């Protein structure tokens, strides 16, 4: 196993009184793809959003335990959330491009980091779009609104937008659930490419997708991490009966 990138220790999360994550312990390796699976409402998104402190936006959230990234507890007081989020990109279930041009969508992150040099921006935009495998489709229409792209293109644009900030980790919450099979295929190929340089955590409801793209799989159920291991093992001979039942579609 490669270096460990993300570690959680007894991570427990409440929305008000309601527990959503119960004492999660997990170690996520660097530059590999880790998939989170589990039935709806089991806490996958909640867990993912704790990793870049997106849950800070919800006032009712209370967190106990630790999340270490590169050995640093990200919930410590001295951590700068803004910098943390630059290091940890996020791709959402519903593609959410800004109502700006394709170019400006990608340039958004670099710009807030103070890069305003047109030549430098052009360079970043091009590399990001290429790395997100969408360059050929949009290179002639960079000044056009991003809202004119198809759903699948928008989602790859959002991935490119994330890449432009040069994160180390990319969190993806069901990035292909709203897409057709061809776009989904493209996203999956892309994930395969990206893992050479990025640590990727992906939430998915699609078992085949988890099996195809991930190296490790974590099965969540009712806020608990039931089983975690090599994807091949989880999908062929899981240790726990619930995991097997979920994967074979007998519940969830």
């Amino acid at each position, binding site marked *: 196993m490669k270096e460990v990138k993300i570690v959680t220790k007894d991570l427990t999360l409440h929305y008000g009184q309601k527990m959503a994550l119960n004492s999660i312990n997990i170690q996520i390796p660097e530059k590999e793809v880790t998939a989170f699976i589990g039935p709806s409402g089991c806490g996958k998104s909640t867990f993912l959003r704790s990793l870049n402190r997106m849950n800070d936006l919800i006032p009712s959230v209370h967190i106990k335990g630790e999340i270490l990234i590169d050995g640093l507890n990200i919930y410590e007081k001295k951590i700068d959330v803004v910098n943390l989020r630059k290091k940890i990109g996020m791709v959402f279930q519903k593609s959410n491009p*800004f109502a700006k041009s394709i170019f400006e969508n990608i340039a958004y992150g670099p710009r807030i980091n103070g890069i305003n040099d047109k030549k430098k921006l052009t360079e970043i935009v091009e590399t990001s779009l290429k790395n997100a495998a969408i360059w050929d489709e949009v290179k002639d229409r960079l000044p056009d609104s991003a809202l004119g792209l198809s759903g699948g293109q928008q989602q790859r644009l959002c991935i490119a*937008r994330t890449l432009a900030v040069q994160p180390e980790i990319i969190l993806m919450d069901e990035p292909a659930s709203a897409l057709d099979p061809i776009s989904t295929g493209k996203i999956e190929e892309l994930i395969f490419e990206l893992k050479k340089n990025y640590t990727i955590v992906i939430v998915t409801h699609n078992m085949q997708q988890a099996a195809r793209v991930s190296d490790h799989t974590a099965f969540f159920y009712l806020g608990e991490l039931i089983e975690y291991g090599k994807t091949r093992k989880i999908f062929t001979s899981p240790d726990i009966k619930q995991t097997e039942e979920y994967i074979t579609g007998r519940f969830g």
Partner: protein
Amino acid sequence: MRLKNKLIGGSIITASALSVVLILAIIVIILVVTIIGGKDTLSWKFLTSFPTDGMMKGGIFPAIYGTALLVIVMSLAAVPFGAITAIYLTEYAHEKSWIAQTIRFAVRTLATVPSIIFGLFGLGFFIKYVGGGMDHLFMGGQLKWAQPNLLWGSLTMALLTLPVVIVSVEEAIRTVPRELREASLALGATKWQTIKKVVIPGSISGIMTGTILAVSRGAGEVAPILFTGAAYYLATLPTSVSDQFMNLGYHIYVLSTQSSNVDQTLPIQFATTLVLLMLTFTLNLTAVLIRSRLRRRIK
């Protein structure tokens, strides 16, 4: 029992239908009367020339000009201040914090205060207190700021229109999808960067609607500027915020009550009314159109 319900329902429907008809009739009558009365006087020359013969003849250009200045200076004060308040209320204040609740209560109350009270407040606060203080401090007691002028009139009007701006901008800010804010924050933008680059551009049409509604309200109100800046008659156009100004609404009031021969000025009154009506009507229509486009975007 059934019959009783039917009777009540029937009379409610009849009553609402009647009131709709009544309101429409009033609007039509106002329009028809002003158009008939004013159409012969209304001309390009009427709009662009000064009053003559003790305001018995001539045009209304200074009143149009003064009204325009009034709404511009007023917007410069009300729009930024209202927008900042709206941003504070939606983005920073906790919904239930006492400060947010106090501001909301104040805004609601402000919206119900009779406009003449704003005029009196402007007189007492801006002219006597602020203006008097400025004269004392900067003018060595000489009278310059402690009298009605464009600045005090506009600021008083800004207070009156502030709730309109705040409510419109708040409504627009709430239509910016949460997903877009999250996208920005997830890219490592600060809250303020997100507001500046995503929330405000996303609510620009609401800010515009608010501005236009405020301008339209400000253009039509007379009471707030009665004591704080409007002039009965000026031979020259105002050139500084410390000058007084003429105003369309006030001009109508003056012509219809203060003139030595009210009947003779009747066509001018109608024409001026027509100008004011068309102005506020167009402004409101524009605001409604922008707003409906915005509403459609939400769906």
